């Protein structure tokens, strides 16, 4: 295997048991370079989300190998998986913010997973990233009082605040207008350049495709196209 942050070899995945057992992805072999922005495309049911959850340590890898940040996920213990997840940042299609926490508190959750640490510093970091995403005047709002786009930006802030080594995103710009979608992707790209953060993103947004380093197209669980830009 290589020293790429994400590597897959002979990766298969099945859903269901017995007669209902259905293979979702077939023999995926990938090396994703550090600092790159990779887009996964394909029709629904093509297996791109399954691949993303396998890389994100959210599903058990059973057949083949996935190596994330030098850890083989096949047969990895729950403790190793939990530890790895802390080094990843997830941006979901739905914002999945906690309704009882303010914007700042939601972002703090992304920091406190690494331990309580210095509360003042953490709060500063949370405010800083919210400001960068244009939410300076929404810091203490509950999600219920934010618009869809604002919520999604809070979710992005939560994923990025702890400087993850890999960012996994599922249609992150679906709820964003053109401008803030552009801001978010630009941010991910510059994080790749400055910090070497690797981003894997499921999207069909043509505005993003132009900015991607690599576009992988899946169909029926197989890679049908792999284009470097």
């Amino acid at each position, binding site marked *: 295997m290589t020293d790429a942050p994400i590597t897959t070899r002979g990766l298969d995945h099945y859903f269901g048991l017995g007669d209902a057992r259905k293979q979702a992805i077939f023999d995926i072999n990938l090396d994703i370079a550090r600092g790159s922005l990779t887009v996964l495309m394909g029709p629904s049911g093509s297996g791109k989300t399954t691949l993303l959850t396998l890389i994100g340590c*959210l*599903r058990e890898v059973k057949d083949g190998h996935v190596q994330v940040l030098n850890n083989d996920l096949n047969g990895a213990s729950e403790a190793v998986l939990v530890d*790895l997840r802390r080094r990843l940042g997830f941006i*979901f299609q739905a914002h999945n913010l906690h309704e009882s926490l303010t914007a700042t508190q939601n972002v*703090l959750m992304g920091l406190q*997973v690494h331990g309580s640490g210095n509360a003042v510093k953490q709060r500063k970091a949370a405010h800083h990233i919210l400001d960068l995403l244009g939410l300076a005047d929404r810091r203490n709002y509950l999600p219920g009082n934010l618009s869809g786009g604002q919520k999604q930006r809070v979710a992005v802030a939560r994923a990025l605040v702890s400087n993850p080594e890999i960012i996994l995103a599922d249609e992150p710009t679906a709820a964003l207008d053109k401008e803030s979608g552009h801001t978010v992707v630009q941010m991910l790209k510059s994080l790749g350049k400055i910090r070497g953060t690797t981003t894997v993103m499921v999207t069909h947004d043509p505005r993003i495709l132009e900015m991607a380093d690599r576009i992988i197209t899946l169909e029926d669980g197989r890679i049908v196209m792999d284009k470097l830009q």
Partner: protein
Amino acid sequence: MTLLFGRLPIGWLQLTHSRGRFFAAVAGVAFANLLVFMQLGIMGALNSSTEAPYAMLNADIILSSKDGNTLTDGGHIPRTRMFQALGVAGVTEGTPLFIGNLPFTLDDGSSVSLLSFGMDVTKPHFAGQAIAPLLENLNIESTVLLDEGTRGMPALVIDDLMEGGRFSFETGGNTLTAVGTMDVGGGFLADGMMIMSDQTFLRAFPNRTSGAPNHILIHIADGVAVDTVVARLTEAIPSSNLRIQSLQASANSDLVYMSTERPTGIIFGFGVFMGVLVGLVIVYQVLSTDVAEHLREYATFKAMGYGQPFFLGIVFEQAIILAVFGFIPGFFVSLGLYAGMVSFTGLPVEMDVNRAILVFFGTLAACSLSGAIATRRLANADPADLF
């Protein structure tokens, strides 16, 4: 609170996010607390009224009839047992104790029963501290001391007695005169209590004889262990119908009898159980609904790398919050109801610190148990479902 947990107080924020439900949950816990407090209060009153008559006595050992259930509910024993007992080494003195119930008709036509104790008033050292000095007043025939808390007795009569007045009343064809009061309080046993000389007792109960008292009280010599004398007495008096025990042991076995064999004790015990059950169900319902409603958020936190201890922490944090916030109003409303019960029934229902502490920790334990059951739902939070 962030400092306390080393993280955001998510359980607290989650609970208080929907005020209405939080309020209902707290009210539920308070209600369960109230149920338990009421049952324990009545049970405590039952216990203290079982023990109350013992405060009138002062003895090391008590000889009773084996077929008796409690101090005030038992058969007779021959007085000769006292003379037999006096022959045993370590026994210094003995005196018979007579107990009976006298009906008494109040002016308004209602009838109350007065539990009457007859004893040798020339031996005040067999009476409890509070009563002993008053016994000399009972040398005069047909005089009694009346319990201050006697139910149905006009307050005027008691006040007058306490100020040195007298109160004559007729019972069973005899006239008795109360010459003073005492504070015993035996709400469950009878409407009130009286103490009188053995002579007055035998006059008031014509069918009783001096040869057959209810109990015999024994004093033992200093420096001898009560158990030793009990053993000697048991050996010296080979009667199959006699129970020989220390006064304390007698009080304890009365308590056991009242709380385990009499339906009242069982009913209140069951009431406590029901209260705890109601609390458990309410808290479980609230916590598991809360977990179910936040499965998506929890799944997100799982994806972010939060482990199981974090989620257990949230649920237990909520359990403890509910316990504490429910206990406080439950406690104060109970105090109010206790006061109400005292004024309506005259039962000695009192809040004692031990009970409050017991119920508080019981509430914590019950809430934690509910929380522990509710955490099983956490397994349903699967981050793979988020995409």
